Every structure is written in C-alpha cells, then in structure tokens.
C-alpha cells in the first residue's frame, strides 16, 4: 500500500504534460462542439430515462391554480402595482402592530426597570460615574434598541418569510428582470436585492448566485441601496412622526407605510440607476442571459416559519443590535459628561459638525450619530435622541445630560425632536440619509471578503455616502427655496 502510494506520488511531470498536450491537440481535432455535444447527449439520455419512468396525467389538465396566479402576479399591468400594494400592506401591518408592544416594552425596561436598577446601584454605594455609565448609558441604550427594534422585526420578519416560503420572491425577480437588464445588470440581482432588505451583509453573500463577475460586482456595490432591518425602524419612526402626523389619525398608518414604501422604492430606483451607471463606466459590458425557474407556489409552513424567523432572524439581529448598543451607550454617556472647558466633548463635536449638517438639511447631531453608528445602523435613533436632549439642554425630559430617557410614545419623541429644531425637512433628509450612506462595518467587511479587493470595497462605501450628501444638499436647497 505504502509503496503503491509512493509510486503514485512520483508521477512524472512528463506524464502530466503529455496528458495536457494531447488534450490540447485532441481539442483542436474535434472542433468546438465538445461542450454542445456533451450537453446534447446529457439531454437525450435524461429524456429517455425520464420517459420510461414517468407517467404523466392523461386527459385535460385540471384547473391550474399556479398558472392563473402567475399570470396575475407577473402580469405586465398588475405585476408592479401588486408588488407595491403587498409591500405597503406588510409595512402597514408592521407600523400598526408595533406601536403597542413597543410602548409596553419601553415602559417595562425604561420606566420600571431603569429607576430600579439605578436605586440598586445607589444602594450598593457605587460611585456616580459608574451608575452613570452602566445604568444611564449601557442599560438605557440596550433598552431603547430592544423597544424600538423588537416589535417591528417580530412582525416584519415572519411576514417576509411567509412570502418567501410561498414562492413570491422569484416572481419579483421575474417582474424586475427587464429593468435590471436595461440597466446592464443581471436579473438575479433582484433576488440579492430582496435579501438586502433583511440584511445587506446577507444580500452581498447572496450575490454568489450571479455567474458573471462583472454583474456580481454591480450587485454587491448596489446592495446597500436596499434598506436593511437596522434602518427600517428609523424609517418607520421618522415617517410616523413627520409624515403620519400630517394626516388625520385614521389615515396616519397608511401615510406612514406609504412614506416608508416610497423611500424603499427610491432605494430600488437608485439600485437601477447606479447599476446602469456602473455598467456604462467602470464595469462595462452586456447583461448576460439566464434562466429563472418559477417554483410552484407552496402553502407556507406556518409554525416552522414563525420559529425560524423569530428565533433565527429576529433574535440574531436583535442580539447584534444589543451588542453594539451597549458600548455605544457607555461612550455616549462619557462624551456627554466629560467636559473640556465649559462644554462636554459631545457638545464640541456637535457645534463643530452643525454647519455641515445644516447645509445638508440635517444637523450636527445626526452627523455625529451616523459616525457613532458605523458598526450598526440600529443605534442611530437612540443616539440622535440623547444628543438632541443634550445639545438643546431640554429639561424635564429624561434625567439630564447623557441619559437616554423614557420615550414610550412617538409623540414624546416628536416633542424632543421639534424642540431640537427639527422640521419636516430634517425628517425627510434623515430618511434619505438613512437610505444613502456608507454600509455598516459588517457589510463593508463582507464586501471585502467577497470581492477580495480594497478598490471595490472602497467604491461600495464611498458611492452611497457621496450620493447621500449630494441628494440631501439638493433637497435642502429646493425645500428652502420653496418653503422658507
């Protein structure tokens, strides 16, 4: 045995060369048709074997539910409106359903447990700064993330997974294929784009289904234009404060859902525009053709779907948010309470970035929040709220500087933001900037792992950031021209 192995390993280079060279000669001799004739013979044999084993139903086929449904869902006229209606319906359910549990969780974690936790700290005689960092910083940041994120995710993910299980996603890809083709991109990009609605890092990995490296790069670079679950809660909250509130209460839910769908649609639009731009400049080439299978509709498995989407998706995403929120909470408390001169470090930062923020129709607080939130988009809203209280020196809300406070109703959040000088423009531009800014650090790292290229990773980071700055700037100028 050992001898045989040794002999095996000693295979001569000459032998290998002779295999390869004769393969080359033979390849020329038999012409270009190897591949085709191989495929032909596979198909012929498969056909023969299948025809012997399979008995198809005879007579007239029964009423075909799948075909009827497909002709509606992928129809030229109803396909897109149905898609947007479905999306709006999912968001409406999420917005309406999340309000009450969000308030309940906030009142439990913030109103009840936070004072209790503080009193425990005081009781065991911990110094004021330790109580501050742990109870007012870390605990409140985590409490905030849980109450803002858990309810919408626990509603949105199962709904989305049910649609996925039912077989709707390939139909979306089918509908959008012609748009992507015209943009010079791969039709399957709509699948990785849809995965990006859950998580951009997952969406970037999902681009592996795209064969051509050129089209795959386009899909990777533009995946960030899909709003991820770290950004949905921001969109929903800001939309309900600044747009839902404009409408009568009965319609508020619809308007909010509509505004969120609008931003998501804008994301799809940017995906197409940037894909188009890339395929005409840096990544030139034609769109390649592919076959897309429309699987049969399957009744979703309700319990398993609930289990996987709640335990796997919701819990994992929430855990990630908490892990990033905890240190962020500590940092925020510290920069708000360490003073340099007469102002805290946070105030110095805010004053410094405020002019730039105002130019974009945002403000210094939002700019700082987006820098702090590079590891995870989830913590943008808690950071914004806390910093707003700090910079406007609001009293009577929360517990003073550097404390993330109890705001269990959207109206309270609205009051803080308005007191901080927020207008409809700030809300609108925050929603736009949330759509258009650098990907989170996890996604950036995933892009690097998938492309193995600093250049493309940098491009995927810089393009959306520049777009965000330019578009927010333009919107701010137009808004000020029209309304101020």
């Amino acid at each position, binding site marked *: 045995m050992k001898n045989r192995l040794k002999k095996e390993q000693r295979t001569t280079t000459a032998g290998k060369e002779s*295999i390869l060279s004769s393969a080359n000669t033979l390849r020329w001799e038999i012409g270009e048709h190897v591949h085709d004739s191989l495929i032909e013979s596979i198909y012929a044999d498969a056909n023969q074997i*299948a025809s012997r*084993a399979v008995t198809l139903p005879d007579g007239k086929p029964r009423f075909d539910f799948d075909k009827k449904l497909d002709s509606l869902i992928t129809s030229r006229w109803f396909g897109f409106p149905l898609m947007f209606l479905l999306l709006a319906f999912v968001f409406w359910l999420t917005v309406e359903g999340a309000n009450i549990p969000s308030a309940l969780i906030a009142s439990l974690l913030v109103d009840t447990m936070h004072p209790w936790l503080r009193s425990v700290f005081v009781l065991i005689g911990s110094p004021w700064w330790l109580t501050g960092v742990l109870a007012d910083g870390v605990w409140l940041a985590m409490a905030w993330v849980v109450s803002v994120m858990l309810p919408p995710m626990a509603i949105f993910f199962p709904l989305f997974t049910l649609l996925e299980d039912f077989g709707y996603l*390939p139909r979306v890809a089918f509908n959008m294929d012609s748009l992507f083709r015209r943009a010079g991109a791969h039709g399957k990009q709509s699948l990785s784009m849809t995965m990006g609605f859950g998580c951009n890092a997952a969406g970037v990995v999902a681009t592996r*289904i795209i064969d051509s490296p050129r089209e795959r790069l386009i899909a990777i670079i533009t995946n960030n234009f899909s709003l991820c679950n770290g950004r949905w809660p921001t969109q929903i909250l800001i939309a309900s404060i600044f747009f839902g509130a404009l409408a009568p209460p009965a319609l508020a839910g619809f308007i909010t859902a509509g505004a969120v769908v609008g931003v998501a649609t804008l994301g799809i639009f940017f995906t197409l525009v940037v894909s188009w731009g890339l395929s005409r400049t840096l990544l030139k080439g034609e769109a390649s053709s592919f076959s897309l299978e429309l699987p049969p509709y399957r009744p979703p498995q309700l319990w398993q779907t609930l289990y996987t989407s709640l335990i796997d998706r919701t819990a994992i995403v929430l855990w990630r948010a908490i892990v990033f929120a905890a240190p962020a909470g500590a940092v925020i408390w510290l920069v708000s309470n360490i003073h340099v001169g007469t102002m805290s470090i946070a105030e110095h930062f805010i004053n410094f970035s405020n002019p730039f923020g105002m130019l974009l129709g945002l403000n210094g607080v939002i700019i700082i929040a987006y820098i702090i939130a590079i590891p995870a988009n989830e913590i943008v809203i808690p950071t914004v709220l806390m910093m707003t209280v700090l910079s406007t020196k609001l009293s009577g809300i929360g517990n003073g500087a550097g404390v993330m406070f109890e705001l269990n109703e959207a109206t309270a959040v609205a009051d803080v933001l308005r007191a901080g000088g927020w207008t409809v423009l700030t809300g609108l531009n925050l929603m736009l900037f949330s759509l258009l800014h650098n990907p989170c650090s996890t996604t950036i790292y995933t892009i690097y792992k998938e492309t193995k290229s600093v250049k493309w990773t940098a491009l995927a980071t810089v393009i959306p950031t520049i777009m965000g700055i330019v578009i927010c700037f333009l919107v701010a100028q137009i808004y000020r021209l029209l309304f101020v």
Partner: protein
Amino acid sequence: MSQTPKENCDDCPVHNLGNLTKLGINMSQFDFVVALAGNPNTGKSTVFNALTGLRQHTGNWPGKTVTRAEGGFVYGNKRFKLVDLPGTYSLLSTSTDEEVARDFILFGQPDVTVIVVDATRLERNLNLVLQVLEITHRAVVCLNLIDEAQRHNIKVDTRRLAKDLGVPVVAAAARQEEGIPELLKNVYDVASGAYICRPYRLERTAPRLEKAISELTAKIKKEFPLLPNTRWIALRLLDGDQKIIDAVKSGELGNLSAKSVATREAVQ
C-alpha cells in the same frame, strides 16, 4: 458491526429511524461524509434539516443556499457528516455556486452523494443526476416532492428509475418527513458497501469524440491508475475546464486516487 443474530426488525427502516440521532453541528468525528446535491429549490435544505435536526433556513426560491452548510447524524452506529451543497442545474459551467458543488463532489470525495430531485420535473433534474453519476459512483437519488407529483397525477416508477440509473432511488416528501427512513437506510447501505452502485454512464454518439475520449482516457489511466472517473476527467480536459487542467498539473488528481484507495481499504 454486531455479533448478535439478526432480528427481523433490523432490516426495517422504520426500526432504524428510531436509532437516528440528530447531531446538529456536532461533527467532531465521523465515519462517512454524505453530500447533498440537486437542482435549486428541490428541498435539499429540508432534507438536510430532517436528517441533522438543524434548522437551516429554507425558502421557496432557487439559489437560497449559496454556501456549504454542514451537520451531522448517527445512524446504525455510524457517524455521518452531511454537507448541503448549493443547488445547481449543472456542474459544467463556472458560476461560484456550481463550482462549490462540483469541487466538493470531485475533490471532497464524499462517501455517498444524495441527489435530491423534484419528482414533478424529473427530466430536467436528471440532467444534473447524470452529471453527478459521471463523477462519483456512490450515489442515492432522493425523489423528493413526491406528494406534489401525486397531486398533479404524475406517476414515477422508482424501481424502473433505479434500474436505469444504477443507484437506489427513494421517493420522499421531506417536508412531511416521508421517505426519510428509507433514504437513511439506502445512504447507509451505499456508504457501508452493502449496496454496490452501477451508475449509468452517458452514451456518446459522435464517433470522433468517442475516439478522442478513449485516447485521452488511456493516457490518464496510465498516469493516475487508481482514479475512479477517468472518462469524466478526459471529457473535462477536452472541454478545456481550467480547474481540472490545474488539478492535472499540480498532481492533485493523484492525491484523489490515493485517497479513494485509502477509503476503499478502510471499508474492507
């Protein structure tokens, strides 16, 4: 494996299913490696979950699994490592997911490759089956979604199919866990050598191609005498498959044949 006289129940897959231990991701040691291949959206991940007790996310769209997922189970006192490969229509072209699947079946040399096929679309699924059978000679076909086929009045003669393909064919409805015991039994039999596969090999009609293949096959046999699938290697070289050309150059093919001898002797 055991010295005690065989009892009636030992042969029954249902009895043995009672002995299935789902190991989840605990795969520290294993006796056999099983690969799960198949077209996209035929239920590979569902079969994977049924066997390992893991909950790989399943979705009703082609291309959901793009990376390899691994899990383990114990059956008949043997530990199995199960590898869920990305779904592919063929192993010939060069997208990343197809390469992941092809490389694992060729270079990973699984002891058994389970090919999950959609019973309602057998003909198209057979294209992949035939390609897998060109690479490996130890395979089990899992004729999944048989419940959907029945709903559409499609009948599949599994015995005829098994005879034609030369490998076991098991009808299954993995979502309902139907056919899983039989699948396990057949995987076990093929892995342990109790069932010897005689896989169907493609018949090629073009005589010029046939001549080239046999010429090249002879050369490869001389250089790598222990390789189990020389014809397929020859065919890939003729098609100009860069990965295979590299494998010849680096001698990686030689390692493959050495490994298959090692496993064969270990089994004996």
